[in-house]
Structures are given as structure tokens and as C-alpha cells.
């Protein structure tokens, strides 16, 4: 690869529920488990708080991948929130697929508060996958570009 080409750094938005995944991310930090800085976490009370519009907005604004993390099925702090999230995301992802967005750019993962290692491993894998896919252009709203 020629030197002047800057290595591609993906923009990744991670939505994490407050009770499990955000705590899992904190645990990854406490245990000093490395994952790329391309991942930026947004804290939400529950994975079911994530409106599909947030994900579309992220893609419009130039995100290259969006990941949603919640409690394991059955372990939701609000009992059923992650089931709603799972159903909503299944629909959204099939729509994104129809629009031609690679399936690998979106992901739902269950990470508990005890799974710091899983959080870091998931993020490493996700960043690697999105980096391989390259820049996301299809959904980008060009009006948002400077």
C-alpha cells in the first residue's frame, strides 16, 4: 500500500444499555482490555430505547458501522426490553439489507455486566469486519458533509 494513503479508520457507534453492556464496557476498561478507539459508546437505559431512526441517522451522518448491545435474553433489567430490541433490529436490518447496506455493518450483541472480555472481543471483531468493508457511502447524507 502506498504511504500517502491514510489507513481507513471506521466510525463506529455503539449503543449500550446502562445495566449490562455499558457496565460490561466499563469492566473491559477496568481490566485494561484493548479495543480500537473508533468505537464510541452512547449510553441508553435499555436496548429497547434505541429507535431504528438513531441507527439510520448514524449512517446518514457517515457512520460505517453501528452495534447495539444489551443484556442477555431473559436478563433484561426491564424484563422484556431486549426482546423488543431484537425484533425491531431484525426488521431494520432486513430493510438495510434491501437498501444494499452490507449486513456486517450492523450487529446486535448481548453483553452482560460481567463480560468485559466479551465486550472487548466483540468490538475488536466488529471494527475489523467494518474496516474490511471500507467506508459506508450508500446511506450517507451528502448534505451533512462540509
Amino acid at each position: 500500500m502506498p504511504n500517502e494513503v491514510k489507513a481507513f479508520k471506521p466510525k463506529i457507534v455503539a449503543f449500550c444499555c446502562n445495566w449490562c453492556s455499558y457496565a460490561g464496557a466499563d469492566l473491559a476498561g477496568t481490566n485494561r482490555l484493548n479495543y480500537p478507539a473508533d468505537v464510541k459508546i452512547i449510553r441508553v437505559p435499555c436496548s429497547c430505547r434505541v429507535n431504528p431512526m438513531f441507527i439510520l441517522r448514524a449512517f446518514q451522518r457517515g457512520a460505517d458501522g453501528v452495534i447495539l448491545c444489551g443484556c442477555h435474553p431473559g436478563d433484561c433489567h426491564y424484563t422484556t426490553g431486549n426482546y423488543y430490541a431484537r425484533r425491531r433490529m431484525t426488521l431494520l436490518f432486513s430493510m438495510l439489507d434491501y437498501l444494499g447496506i452490507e449486513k456486517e455493518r450492523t450487529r446486535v450483541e448481548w453483553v452482560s455486566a460481567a463480560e468485559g472480555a466479551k465486550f472487548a472481543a466483540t468490538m475488536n471483531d466488529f471494527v475489523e469486519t467494518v474496516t474490511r468493508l471500507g467506508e459506508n457511502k450508500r446511506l450517507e447524507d451528502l448534505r451533512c458533509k462540509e
Partner: protein
Amino acid sequence: MQRIGVFVCWCGSNIAGTVDVKAVSEALSHEPGVVYSINYQYMCSEAGQNLVKDAIRDYNLTGVVICSCSPRMHENTFRKAAASAGLNPYMVEIANIREQCSWIHKDMPTATEKAIILGRAAIAKVHLNAPLMAGESPVIKRALVIGGGIAGIQTALDIADAGFEVDIVEKEPTIGGKMTQLDKTFPTLDCAACILTPKMVDCAQHEKINIFSFSEVEKVKGFVGNFHVTIKKKARFVDETKCTGCGECTAKCPVKGVPNEFNLGMDNRRAIYIPFAQAVPKVATIDPNYCNMLKNGKCGLCAKVCGAGAIDYKQQDQFVEREYGAIVVATGFNPIKLDQFDEFGYSQSKDVITSLEFERLTNAAGPTSGTLLRPSDGKHPHTIVFVQCVGSRDTSGCGKTYCSRICCMYTAKHAMLTREKYPDTDVYVFYIDVRSPGKNYDEFYRRAVEQYGVHYIKGMVGKVAPRADGKLMVQASDLIAGEQLHIEADLVVLATAIEPDKTARPLATMLTASMDTNDFFTEAHAKLRPVESPTAGIFLSGACQGPKDIPDTVSQAGAAAAKVIGLLAKDKLTTNPCVAESNELMCNGCSSCEKVCPYGAITYLDKEFRMPDRTTMVRRVASVNPAVCQGCGACTVACPSGAMDLKGFSNSQIMAEVDAICQMK
């Protein structure tokens, strides 16, 4: 436009070591609305908090962004600081630049860039924050303790002594738990029954304690201060209020061959039984799997001999609804199953036993009345081999990766007691490490070795093979001598790993309390909040939180009780103001939100609206009960018209964060 102050914390070198904090506060000072930006060594310290308070007053700040550790750590600290300076506490946002930035990235430019972006996202959010007022909800002054072992008993007694009502729900016919099965307890060697049974009686006699024995928690609804619990009282076919525990029925019952759980199946009980003499409540229970009357309607002897007329073959499971302000989980542990450890021959020989079975064999109330006899032939064993770490500290996948914590000490106790009672017995203990951290624990272990002459051998047992003559061939390695050993043993005792009780997992789901990968309940903070679950109003007592011996369990049980008392002593709790809110002008009354609400917090009202032409119109609109709403946000996404929003995590706030994160250069 908000007037925002940005406060970047160094956290000593925790953040400043990898994030250029000065560059962060400089970069963020140019963000729109930011009128003040500063960095400081420890924002959470008193001096740091004063910086925040002073800036709020001096610069008339309407919003505060703290770039520091996780909001799970210090969000409350800074909210309180803001409130004391006259700013609404919900105008504070935290950018997590420690756990989610400085601690995971090694390269300073990268970490600094990320910290700036996280700060920008928080600033973007604060711009859209609105002051929120916390509501109040009443506290029901009664506690529920789930599990009636030593942990549950101690917690219940401590809460009741403070003057609050406590219910204990125990799934077995009697309270007491595992400790009732123990013989003596380390390191003082007092007898378990002598110190436990008085506490069981205290529970039964305490006017503030109500025991639901042979009962299980069926359903939990509600939230801290206001839990609604359905308790299933399983049919025991005996009227608890009439039974006097005289034992007439248990002596006359003709069905004799039922394996006795209390003695771990090493002897038999009848189909109607009282688990042991000191059971609380001392009430008989009929086992429907064995009772002839319940199976085929032929017998009825117990009803005939019962002078109190307590037998009721038609008894059904009963469901009791109770309300509580706090719930304590004390579900305890069980030894693991040994199916995966065939090399020790547990399934092949009766003389390979677990440590808990050994307790019963040496207990005066056990199957051998306390005389140590081999289960196979009833002879006195002359050589006993104890194997430690059976399934503990096991990374092969067959057992548990953690240390079960209690095995080193009880094995030392078993070995010591055996040598004391039967000095002619050779006792070997195979260990990986001996762990004896505890007051007087190491002294206790050393006594076993030095005073009682127990052979401690560092090494692993590879195989236990039963021989035709009844001896057990133990193959082991002595790691210090570097040789293979072959010992002819009469009895092999396995220090089996312990795991959380199987009822804990479904219970955690009901309570929405989180668990770790081993099914132990997780605490709100490993060091600072060790007896609270992250779920408000749920407290942890005993081995359900992690392996614990009796002294640790009792201390933790008392700590959990103190926390419960602290909660129940309040008349009102402030509620989380980050709840859903419906915009009545946009709501079309479709009921989508009501269907997804797990708490039933949404109701519909017929509301009168004034139209532009001065007529009025009545429309059905959603209304959220803020005392019941827990703020998950499920309704906000379900709402097709965008009328439902969540305070503190509004659509526009999250969108603003998304925009800020994606607009990186």
C-alpha cells in the same frame, strides 16, 4: 443557548497518563455554548467538586459536562455537587473518558482525540437537557428474605430486631439450610446445630418474622419500596396450623424406603416426614411421590394416627400475595454434580463420598449416629484420602474456574477430627494450594498438620479405582517429592466445588437482578457496594453472591440487613425522574405504547382539546404514571407518532450524541 462548563478530570494519572487533558479542555472550550473549561487532578475530591460549584455560581452555568470516570461511578457525586450550587442535578452529563477511553487505549493522540469527541457528544446532549424534578414514592415497611439458611436467618433476625416485619420464604420444609447438615464448624469446632438451632427458634418465635416454609417465590412485580410478590405455598398435605410435630405419623407410615435428603440419601425416611428433630417449623410433610394414599388412595394411616387432625390429602398449592419494600436474596449454594469427574470413582464405589456426606457420617444425628463407618460394609476405615479442589479452580471446562473457598478449611477440619477420634487412622490430604486466609484459619490448618499428624501432600489425584476386595486404589502424584504414589484407601472424600443453587437463575430473571457467568448474583460495586444488587431494592446475602464460609456469610447477612433497615427507615423514596412522557398534542391514542410497557405504567385518558375554531374535541390520549414508569423507553420506540419521549434520554438528545460522534474530522 445554554451556558456550559466543562470539567476535565486527570484522575491522577489514570486519565492524564494517556489522554492529554489540557488539550481536551482547550478543544472543548471552543464548542458552542461552552463558557468555562478547566482540568483538574481529581474532580471527585472536595476541591474538585468546589471547582464545579464555584464555576456554576461565578459563570451562571446552566449545564455541566464532567469528563471523568464512568457515570456509574460518580454521576451521583457530581449531580449532588451541582444541586448544592443551585443547579438542577439533571443538567449534569458525564463523558466517560476513563473506563471507555484512557484505560483501553495506549496511544496518547488517539485517546485524546476520542476523549474530545466523547466530550463533544456530552456537550451536545447537555444543550438539550431540561431540569427534571424527582418525584416521591412510599416505602412499604416489610422485607422479604428469599432463602432460610444461615444467611437468610441472620438477615431476617437483624431486620426484625430493628422493628420491621420480615417474611422468610424457604423452599424446603424447614429453615436452616446447609448448615443444619454440618457437624462441626471451623475454626472453633463448635457444633453447627448448637449455634444454628437457637437462631432458627428465634426466627420462629420472633413476632416480626413470618416463615413461609416449603414455599417458593412465584412472581415479582413492582420496584424498590413497592414490590408485589406472589408466594407459592406448596401443598405439604399437612395443615401447618394444626400439626404439633409429635412424630406419631412419621413413626407409623408404612412406606419406609424413601431416600432421606437430609442425610444425602445415605439412609431412608418415610413418605411422611419431618426432615430432622430440630426442624423449624416442626411440621410433617407428605412426599406425594411415595405416599400410597396420594398415589392410589390406599392407606390413610397417618390421618388415623394424627391426634390433631392435621392431615389433609386434598391440600392444594396456595398462592399468597404480599407487598414488600425490599427483597434480600439468600439462595445459597449446592455442591456440584460429579458426573464429569469419573476418575474419582464416585459413581463406582459407595466408599467414595463428598465432603457433605462425610459431615453426615460424622454427625451424631447422621445415618451412623456419628461413628465413622464405611458406607459399603459398615467397617471402620483405617486409611482415608481427602482430595481437594474437585471441580474447583478447574479450567478444563468440566468444573468451575473459581476457588470454592471453603474446602481447604473444612478438609483440615475433617482430617483433624478424624485423627482426634480415631488416632489409628492414616489421613492423607491431596491439595493444589492450601488457602487459609481468615482469622485463626492458618493456625487451624497448621494444627491439623503439626499436632494431629495429617499427611498433607501437594499433588493431584489422578485416579481412584475400586478393587474387588473393597479397597480403593488411589493414584496420585507428589509434586514436591516428584514421585507417583499408590495408596490403598478405605475411604475417599472429595472436596466438591460449590455452585449457586439452581433456583437462583429463574429468581434473578424475576427480580431483574444481574448474575455473573457462574450464576452468582453480581453486586452493585465489587468493593463499595458488596451487598446490594445493581437493581434497586434487591440485596444479597450469603453464598448466592459468591462462595463464602459461615463467618463471612453471617457478616454479609448483617450488612445486607443494615442496608435493608436503611431503606425501610425512610418513609418516602425519591423516584427516578428519567421517565417517559407523552405529548398529548401528538398522541393519537393508538395503544402501541401501552402494549409494550412492562410495568403497566401507561393508561388512557379522554382529554378535551380546544380547537382553533373555539370548539372543543375529546380525544383519547396516553398518560404515563411517573411513579410506576421505570424509564426503559420501550414505549418511545413503539410510538408511531413520536408523541412518547423519555426524559433524560430524549430522541433529540440521543440524535445529538449520534451527530456529535459521527462528525469527526
